[in-house]
């Protein structure tokens, strides 16, 4: 599993890889919104979590359509599927590599971008934690979508239509966790987000592997 994980991280971070693309997209969206909304710091702080969460989800999606597609097109997926490890393990390794090269860097970058929205320190911390806890769910659910759309022509366009509705709980709870801190409320949203992310990560390898088997046999 480590061989596949390291290879995917290496491919994502090399020239032409998806890691920098996702980060650049996230930063661009997060920079443009305050410019468009104006200097109303109260308003910016209220919308920060929602905007940054949606930007993080969309940035993650940029790299998702190639998660299995590139290996499928160049024949690597056939060879990887016949390797000793189960296809579920393969799906988990590739999903983990996706999160390590998109979700985690986006999370690390988020406190910097939160400054543009005038987010208070405690809310910035809540945003960081919510992204850290929630972005694995984005990769996990996205992997299932990437597996399902593998052999579909222009599957990259269909992928968001499948994945985005399934990710709405992550966005709702993720942004809700930050708003709860801003409003001084107890943070049940973060716990719900953690539970959602946990179940997504546990179930995703099985669903993704089933989708891959379906496409490899087509």
């Amino acid at each position: 599993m480590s061989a596949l994980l390291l290879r995917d991280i290496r491919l994502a971070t090399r020239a032409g890889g998806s890691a920098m693309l996702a980060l650049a997209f996230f930063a661009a969206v997060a920079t443009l919104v305050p410019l468009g909304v104006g200097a109303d710091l109260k308003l910016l702080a209220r919308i920060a979590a929602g905007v940054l969460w949606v930007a993080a989800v969309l940035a993650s999606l940029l790299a998702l359509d190639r998660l299995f597609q590139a290996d499928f097109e160049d024949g690597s997926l056939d060879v990887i599927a016949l390797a000793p490890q189960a296809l579920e393990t393969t799906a988990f390794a590739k999903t983990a590599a996706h999160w390590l090269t998109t979700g985690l860097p986006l999370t690390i970058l988020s406190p910097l971008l939160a400054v543009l929205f005038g987010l208070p320190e405690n809310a910035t911390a809540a945003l960081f934690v919510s992204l850290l806890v929630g972005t694995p769910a984005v990769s996990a659910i996205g992997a299932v979508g990437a597996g399902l759309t593998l052999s579909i022509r222009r599957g990259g366009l269909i992928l968001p239509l499948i994945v985005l509705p399934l990710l709405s709980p992550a966005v709702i709870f993720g942004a809700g966790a930050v708003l709860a801190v801003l409003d001084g409320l107890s943070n049940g949203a973060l716990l719900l987000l953690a539970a959602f992310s946990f179940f997504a990560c546990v179930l995703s390898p099985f669903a993704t592997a089933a989708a891959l088997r379906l496409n490899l046999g087509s």
Partner: protein
Amino acid sequence: MAASIKSVEANALTVIRGGRVLFRDLSFRVEAGKALCVEGANGVGKTSLLRMLGGFLDPASGTIRIGDAEDAEERGKLVGWLGHHDAVKAQMSVRETLSFFARLYRGDGDVEAAMDAVGLTRLADLPGQYLSAGQKKRVALARLKLCGRPLWLMDEPLASLDAAGKTIAADLITAYCARGGIAVVATHELLGIACERLVL
């Protein structure tokens, strides 16, 4: 090779693709140490047959046994695969590609020796994007050597290879069979090795 198998056996295979019967009641048996050359016109089902043997596809009817394995997933774990595409990444060098697959397959093969066997030593650090189609095919042949599986399924292994490359491919298959391996090769070209023939 990590493990050896006695034979590959197919009984009364029928394949239907896109509502079209490609072949019906196909049976064959290949013993250890032998190569089977699958021949036939375009679209008769050579690739489908290989993908069925490898466990990717299910036959409409019939059974496949590779050694003692009948289950598709178990069969797949005995297979070294060389398909139409060569599984070479543009961003990874020849050495990185082969090292990756050697680790993935937990093979005990020597990457340097495998590159030497297919004449790629001097290109070891060249990224895949600069390799020609024939050189990529050589990488795929080296990968087969490293995966340590008792059955090679090869789809057009001579495609894109020059005369020297074809000789290397033929020598690799011959040496592999001499060590007790089984090769099932779908091809339109003369392999230049002793093999049984199956015409679809």
